[in-house]
């Protein structure tokens, strides 16, 4: 909380004072300082949160690591800045972070008015409702008059208001800034339901005193394509971040994993040869080392590995691939050819 209140003025001051926030040349800046500064969530289990040993874990965190692996050949050359929903875009605009991998929904307004560019979606999400079973509610349509716990400064507040207006229902929002405080108030019964992106609901339910007492309602009331973002106007940097995400997806499609990537370099498949830099060209086009994609897969893994490690069936979140499966398995994850 205190962080937020310090952060907004600091960031605004930075925006006022800095004469030349690097609009172009982010890659050179990053190479100069020797690491990628990534804005992440910091509190969201499965997406961006340090574990009990202080090691950053999560789908978004691994996405930032992939960018570092592509540039430096070392996935650990990345520093993380935890950002709240309110401060994240300003932090990116003002140059505090080089890339924002913080479960941010791509919208037209953000892509234009905020001066941002979103790249390949790394998680297709949608907003839902978490309710206690004892409330006896089976559908979001029965929530007329409910008190709703919601995080501020996100598309969530707007979707919530839109959904209740569409369905001619009323509600009272209880807006609390921190994820942890919001969840505590909800578990104590301050609100009838809690609304957030479905992936977050799974994370919040996982930390409930008794997770089986809570259910996620079937209605998904919005489209939330969560994508990494960069500053508008630096096309080279945008390409690098974009293809770092796509490389993980392409690797999954090509059947390359962190385990078999070394054997795969001997593959006769020209697509794999190009992808891993055995046949050069892709690296030069991006201004990176030819082994950039190899390094991503070797050090971070393909999309399936990253998904299962952070949010998949074996984790407390137990999320299914759903929309996030490869297009070949009926999902939306689809990479253009790497050539």
């Amino acid at each position, binding site marked *: *909380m205190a962080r937020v209140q310090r952060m907004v003025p600091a960031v605004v001051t930075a925006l*006022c004072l800095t004469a030349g926030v690097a609009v172009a040349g982010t890659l050179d800046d990053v190479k100069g300082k020797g690491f990628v500064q990534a804005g992440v969530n910091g509190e969201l289990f499965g997406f961006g949160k340090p574990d009990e040993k202080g090691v950053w874990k999560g789908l978004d965190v691994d996405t930032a690591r992939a960018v570092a692996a592509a540039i430096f050949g070392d996935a650990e050359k990345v520093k993380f800045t935890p950002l709240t929903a309110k401060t994240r875009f300003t932090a990116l*605009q003002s140059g505090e972070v080089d890339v924002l991998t913080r479960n941010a929904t791509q919208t037209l307004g953000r892509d234009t008015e905020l001066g941002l560019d979103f790249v390949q979606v790394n998680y297709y999400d949608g907003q839902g409702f978490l309710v206690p079973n004892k409330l006896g509610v089976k559908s979001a349509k029965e929530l*007329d008059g409910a*008190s709703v716990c919601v995080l*501020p400064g996100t598309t969530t507040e707007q979707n919530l208001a839109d959904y209740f207006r569409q369905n001619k229902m009323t509600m009272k929002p209880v*807006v609390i800034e*921190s994820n942890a405080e919001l969840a505590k108030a909800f578990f104590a019964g301050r609100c009838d339901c809690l609304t957030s992106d479905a992936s977050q609901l799974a994370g919040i339910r996982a930390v409930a005193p008794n997770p089986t007492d809570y259910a996620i309602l079937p209605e998904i009331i919005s489209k939330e394509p969560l994508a990494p973002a960069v500053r508008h106007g630096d096309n080279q940097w945008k390409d690098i971040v974009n293809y770092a995400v796509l490389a993980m997806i392409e690797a999954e499609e090509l059947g390359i994993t962190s385990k078999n990537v070394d054997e795969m370099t001997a593959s006769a498949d020209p697509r794999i040869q190009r992808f891993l830099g055995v046949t050069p060209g892709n690296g030069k086009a991006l201004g990176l080392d030819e082994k950039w994609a190899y390094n991503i897969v070797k050090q971070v893994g393909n999309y399936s590995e990253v998904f299962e490690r952070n949010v998949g069936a074996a984790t407390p979140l137990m999320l299914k691939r759903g929309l996030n499966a490869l297009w070949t398995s009926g999902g939306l994850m689809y990479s253009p050819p790497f050539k």
Partner: protein
Amino acid sequence: MKGTAQEKIPFFRDPDKLAVFYQALTALGVALLAYYLIGNTLANLERQNIATGFDFLGREASFEIGESLIAYSAANTYGRALVVGILNTLVVSFVGIVLTVILGTLLGIARLSGNWLLARLSAFYIEVFQDIPILLQLFFWYAFFYELLPGPRQALQPFAGVFLCNRGLIFAVPEAHPAFAYAGIALLLACLATVILKKWAARRQEASGRYFPVLQTGVALILGLPALTWFVAGAPTAMVTPVLSGFNFKGGVSISPEFTALLLGLVLYTSAFVAEVVRAGIQSVGKGQREAAMSIGLRPSKVLNLVILPQALRVIVPPLTSQMLNLTKNSSLAVAIGYPDFVSVAGTTINQTGQAIEGVALIMAVYLFFSLATSALMNWYNKKIAIVER
């Protein structure tokens, strides 16, 4: 004097002209700096394709606000949403300041009491509440409310028509009736009459020495006149009683746990500081003053009202003003416990529109206005109570 002698002083040796010159130079420097900063910011924003200006105030807010003094829905504009936030901040600050001054004064007097237990209890309170950060206190009170109180379906009902649950304190209010408007007018008239009465009584006492019981008459007027008006206008007793329907109570008035937690946290914290201010003020009045007043036979209450307080207030008012400002500014911690104050609403607005600079500028302007207005009012009061030196 010879004008010619003065004219010979060149302007760069004339301290008066030099002072004006340096001030103008400084003002010019500040203006140039401001021009540079604003121009630079606009250029930066332009280059990064970030929208600027206050046009967003007229656009649809499309988010709901938990509690509002005026009619508001997601279909209203950002401008109206911000007004809702400002009013919420004003309410919690105003009620908070009134309660803080009362509680702080009582505690400060208790701290000096001859009663050992009372003085120690007050000292203990002051130490504890001064030393715990306000944010922690807010979290504590908020958790206290939502953990302790039951859900709306199991709401406690201490009296008929009053419900207490983790949605708040919900109570019945009288149904709208013209009698209440008349009673309100009667209340205003009674207040006015009391003020006039007080002036008349003071003049009469100075002229004739005869005493008039202003306090008792005033209370009787202020309570009695509206009650009489209400009775004459038909004595309506119909109430709007809250009824549990669906998830929450409908009808009546509700005070949310967020508001109560914020108010309680602010009042308990700030009153500890006010108590110390009041104690310092009372102790600043020399012992001889009290003894002299008692030796001419004044009752203890008169000693306090006529001798001690007028002198103590001179010391109390300036630091008290700064405590009031602290309370107002600390109310911006509301966002931590879900009370939709101005900062909370402005924060959502900033995030939805992405116009952080305009949003933060608005926040600064509003708090600056609150602070200057409070200061101006208290300075006026300070001048009024200042002892006239003869």
